[in-house]
């Protein structure tokens, strides 16, 4: 991982559990893996996406300090989730966009996992296998 990726992964990791939540039947959230893959994805995009996304994470953490008088990671999961939800419903566009920006890579990485997809009834492997059996002739 690059220094930028490491920095982003470290910063976003505390937001992973509260963004995703857990439910019976879903695989356990591997916070570090989700954070690192989010970092690779965001850092693979254009510079403005990194700036906005990284800035968004920092702003959310600042918001926790200002509104709850506690660092984000010291809030309970329910408090963190409530803060994200409240921010997403704010009448101010900038606040509204924060959890969306931060949540995008986290949600993408978690629901990209094969074991999570299988819980949702999407078995990628068997579909690929099926597609291999039905490859279309390239003749015109």
């Amino acid at each position, binding site marked *: 991982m690059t220094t930028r990726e490491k920095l982003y992964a470290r910063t976003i990791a505390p937001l992973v559990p509260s963004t995703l939540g*857990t439910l019976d039947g879903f695989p356990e959230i591997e916070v570090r893996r989700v954070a690192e893959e989010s970092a690779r994805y965001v850092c693979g995009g254009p*510079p403005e996406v990194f700036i906005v996304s990284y800035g968004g994470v920092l702003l959310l953490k600042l918001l926790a300090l200002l509104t709850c008088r506690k660092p984000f990671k010291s809030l309970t999961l329910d408090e963190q989730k409530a803060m994200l939800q409240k921010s997403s419903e704010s009448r101010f566009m900038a606040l509204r966009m924060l959890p969306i920006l931060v949540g995008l890579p986290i949600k993408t990485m978690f629901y990209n996992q094969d074991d999570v997809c299988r819980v*949702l009834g*999407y078995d990628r492997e068997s579909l690929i296998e099926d597609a291999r059996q039905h*490859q*279309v002739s390239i003749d015109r």
Partner: protein
Amino acid sequence: MIIRPEDVKGDITKSADVVVIGSGAGGAPIAKELAVEGRSVVVLEEGAHYTRDDFKLNPLESMMRMYRDAGQTITLGVPSVVAPMGNTLGGTTTINSGTALRMLGPILKKWHMFHGLHDITEDEMGLLYSHLEEYLFVKKADPEVAGPVANTFLEGARKLGLSSGWLPRNAKECEGYGSCAFGCPSGAKQSMDVSFIPDASKSGAEFYTCCRAESIKVSNDVAKGVTGRFVDPSSGRSTGIGITVEAKVVVLAGGAIYSPFFLLRQGLANSSGQVGRNLEIHPAVQTVALMDRPMDPPKGIPQSSHVDEFKDEGIMLEGGTVPPEVHAVTLPFYGKAHAAHMKQYPNMGIFGGMVSDIDSWGRVLALPRAGYSPSIFYSLKGRDVEKARLATVIMAEIWFAAGAKKVFTAITGHTELGSTADLRRLAQSRIRARDIYAMSAYHYLGTCRMGSDPEWSVVKHTGETWDVENLFISDASILPTSPGVNPQLTIMALATRNAGFIDDKLNNG
């Protein structure tokens, strides 16, 4: 022949009749038509070559490898819009939905009246469309393969008496693997990489992949060739190996974002000042419905059906299934609430609404910044915001008519519609552009537009630039306005047409 970077051991110097920059819907048909005519053709494609065996139904992997900016290209404006673009052999056709529609009838009349393009006739376009439809196996999506989401949405539209149907697609024996936008694993979708490119290759055209064109050689206002550099496909950084192609004709086919960016960087073909201006896109909003029965996503054809009742008002509804990781980001929830909603993914359907007749314009600029990427300025204005809201209302109404228990929208304050009362509230509301929190955009057009007046356009009706002889542009950038529908077939039709003018030019010395 398709040449991969590992096949290239040192700097290359070549000469050819034609060098084409880009292998998408604008570049590949020209390469094929001219190669079949016996012309020597070299194509430089910045993206890498992947085949159906590489497509693993994994959106993330595909975005990282085959999309520009890993699929995260965004416009600068309100709302900021995600603008996905292909960066692979076949261009965006390799990762598009495969919708193959003809331009709406009145649009060509608009081109005649406002852009002086009388040489492009309805009969000629009709012939070109017919030829392409046959070549690309275009036919309407099969309802049996389309999947429950499309069938359910159309059932709702029919209950409301709305004009709707199955979309024509360039797909052959499609079995509905739900992954058009991430590479078709069976090779059914007739994107450029499985149609024009292999045929061009058979006729002798050479495709250099992972090869970024850097400049067009011009002498006395005549294009003479192209220089480029091979790039590492994962980092985009130069490998240090260069290529020079001397050619009688140069075709720029980098798409409506990268073609103007290329010209602006070099200060070429812009005496009109129109390069990069007049950017039109098709902004799109989505609705997600929770049904009381399995929708079986994402199996089926991701974009197989449409509701065209409102096409004259500039609204087209097209959809719709997406895999879980894409679906997850459309739901505006956090924590357990998000997980609980995602658990209902098997019972959910998604549909998109596209503003197809647009009033908003943007601009592509080559500003100093890191990496090789343009700045895209675009904001949704005036009636387009209203159309986006209307599209959302119509889609929600259709979903409820089809039996949806809930509908989720991308409009702040109306994210969850649980009843027709919620729907009425949205229908009676006024929204601003910033109230739309998630928007994507497709079909970038118009940034090097065609026209009969060199002061207001960049290229002639033949595709040749007004300023530089033997420099042609062939991609979505030359369309002077939106064709009112998905543009790939129109881009291919114009490319095929322009191949004829290039051939004439080569014949005449």
